[in-house]
């Protein structure tokens, strides 16, 4: 019988008990049990990237990760990155560049973009396109999103140079 079982997940640096059915995805647990709704349920098929979260420091699809398989992993969602300097720079530059319209893809874009500039502080446009190629946006045409990631990366480089 597939009754809910209590899992001990590590989410945003804290141990979080969560109730999950065997087939529940990490996305279902985040959104429907823990009310962490930054990650969005778009296609639920791993195609659109709206559900992107960081698992063990790599962007992954929350909709393709079974919650029971995530015990022991460090999960980071946008909610846990409020005080992260890279995320703050990205959020600021997305707002300034107008890098969204409906905003549905934005949380996933931000998680993917943060992983990119963590690994590569000075990406060229091709690297930004490649890093975001798993995040679909149906509104913007991507140009402003790429500009926003570049301006956040530049601002972070300036901060490092000034410190």
């Amino acid at each position: 019988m597939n009754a809910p079982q209590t899992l001990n997940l590590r989410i945003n640096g804290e141990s979080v008990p969560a109730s999950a059915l065997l087939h529940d995805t990490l996305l279902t647990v985040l959104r429907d049990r823990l009310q962490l709704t930054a990650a969005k349920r778009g296609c639920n098929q791993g195609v659109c990237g709206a559900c992107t979260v960081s698992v063990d420091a790599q962007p992954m699809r929350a909709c393709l990760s079974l919650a029971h398989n995530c015990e022991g992993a460090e999960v980071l969602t946008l909610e846990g990155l409020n005080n992260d300097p890279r995320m703050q720079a990205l959020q600021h530059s997305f707002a300034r560049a107008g890098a969204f319209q409906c905003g549905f893809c934005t949380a996933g874009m931000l998680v993917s973009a943060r992983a990119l500039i963590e690994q590569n502080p000075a990406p060229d446009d091709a690297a930004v396109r490649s890093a975001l190629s798993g995040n679909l946006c149906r509104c913007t045409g991507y140009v402003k999103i790429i500009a926003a990631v570049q301006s956040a990366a530049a601002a972070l480089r300036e901060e490092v140079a000034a410190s």
Partner: protein
Amino acid sequence: MSALQGFFRPKTVAEAVALLAQDPDAKPMAGGAPLVAMLNARVIEPAALVSLAGIAEIQGISVLPDGRVRIGAFTRHRDTAASPLLAGTCGAVKHAASQIANATVRNMGTIGGSIAFADPGLDYPPALVAAGAEVEIAGADGRRSVAVRDFFVDWYTTALEPGEMVTAVLLPAPEAGAHGVYVKHARVAGDYATASAAACLAKDGSVRVAVGGCGPTPLSSDEANAILSADRSDASVAKAGALLEALADPLDDVRGSADYRRILIPRLLRRAVRSVEGQA
């Protein structure tokens, strides 16, 4: 309501195959894409899942004492795409890994899960055929290995018997001066291949090629390889392309018509051969 009644996280291959032997409706799970996507869409309803994520023995890439390269089944595409051990003709496999889907999916997907899925539009199969790979399989009765050409049997069908799982992919020892490439044609970045071609060029000039996305299993031909090993002129590449095209049995689907895929075969083959020559 899902039929899923068990979720297991074994630590060894022996534990995993014992769990698979116990329940014929249990399925092994590697990176989860596309298995969880099919679960979400209720296309499959396994009774139990055996997660292979905790099995250290099937993770990572290593060189065996005889020089062959072993890619553990649970090695993620990201790591295969970045491995310095995949030199020589193994480069075709590394090159294919770098072109799978997108960066996020490459963080999740594994080589064992990919080839066990055996979708004709996958990137690894033609690269593995051109590179002359073997697939190591574990079951309740022990281990066996099969040539990758015999591993892919039909649409979404492999040589895996019920209760078996892929444990590794084995590649011939890389030699200096050898090269391998994978050329993919897709509608948009991140899609499955409409058609693809892999080419490996050994130090002695021998060539091995394979075509993906144009039939239930990768296309390959000893005769085409012999022609290209003797001569790589445009006329020879065209002759080899025609031989592979004659073996094709492509689908008409959303990624392209069967006729379009047939047209792509000699063109992708030429591109792959010229590209691997360019590395030499």
